[in-house]
């Protein structure tokens, strides 16, 4: 039973790591700010969820699991707002400079 649980937890951790990797590759490879945000926020939130779930299984305690859930919710919230702010800013910058919408501001 515990072996099965551990294997499942490890699988979740691996899935999380894969999503992080995908998000990071997207961050580096995608051409402009909006698509980078797309890669980063979506993939990383799934990745974090999966890692939190895996860690909760390994800890095997309800208290820890709830804490990890709280962490994930906070990270989700913060990522939402900051991604929103960055996206707005990059759109504004693009409008100001008259260039293609979504071009990276730097």
């Amino acid at each position, binding site marked *: 039973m515990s072996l099965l649980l551990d294997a499942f937890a490890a699988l979740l951790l691996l899935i999380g790591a894969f999503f992080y990797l995908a998000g990071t590759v997207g961050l580096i490879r995608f051409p402009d700010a909006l698509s980078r945000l797309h890669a980063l926020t979506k993939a990383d939130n799934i990745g974090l969820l999966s890692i939190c779930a895996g860690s909760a299984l390994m800890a095997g305690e309800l208290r820890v699991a709830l804490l990890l859930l709280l962490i994930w919710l*906070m990270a989700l919230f913060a990522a939402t*707002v900051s991604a929103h702010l960055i996206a*707005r*800013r990059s759109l504004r910058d693009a409008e100001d400079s008259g260039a293609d919408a979504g071009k990276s501001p730097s």
Partner: protein
Amino acid sequence: MVIDVFLALGLVVLAWQALIGGSLFRGIVMFIVFGMVLTLAWAWLGSPDLAMAEAAIGAGVTGALIMIAYWRLRRINAVEPRDPSPARSRLALVIAVLATGLVGAIGLAAVSALTGDATAARVMNETLPDTGLGNPITGVLIVFRNLDTLLEVAVVLAAYIAARAALGRESADLPLPPAPDTPLLTPLVVTLAPLTMVVAIYLLKAGSQYPGGAFQASALLAALGVLLVLTGRVGPAAAANWLTRAGLVIGTLVFCLVGLGMLVIGAPLLAIPGIWAVYLIEAAMMISIGLTLVLLFAGAPGLSGKRS
């Protein structure tokens, strides 16, 4: 071994990216990432207290302070300095290589001579249980070597007054970025503000037994303050009202008065009478340091309810 090398190499590469070449803005971002990796390094080395302090103060607050200064300098439109002459950089290279060699050599020599017999730390580990504290770092900071901490709070106070002296005028016209007008910010601030305060107070209380304490808590409060300033919830004020001034000095004052009070009843100077005094002093320090850092970020003498 692999993780050691990975983190150590990461630190050096990030420092390189932050310091050499590239735009200054990029350098500042890299410096903040450097702080994050240093946080991981402290955690990996086995010091959660330092990891927390580095994340909150070393990377977080310092990064925010440098960013806002950069933004202000851009607004002032000061003359960007020219690049250095090659002759100067050659000399600098020689000096830097020598310094690297020296620090590397003495560092290696020092760790090869490690005996694991640090007298002071051994005595500390033996004495700690008498204080009722479980966290040795809090023990050192508040009980054993509290003169350091007292003077350190005074350093923070001095930095505030000195910064006011440097910025001159008793007004709040140092520029701040405009607050973004988005409906998402309000729920974020409304959720984060009480949560941050709860976590800060928890850190303060947990600091007596587990990693945490006044400094980390004060940095959290400072981060909250910075968020409130940036979102326009709190604005700079032209003068510090008496409450703000009291908040600035309460850390130093409570520390000194507890210390002197012990002297009056015949105990040694700055002796800590009990665990309640630890909490009292730490709470006062948390308020003072957090408030000072927010004021230094806002670049203003005081704070007002809403940005005008």
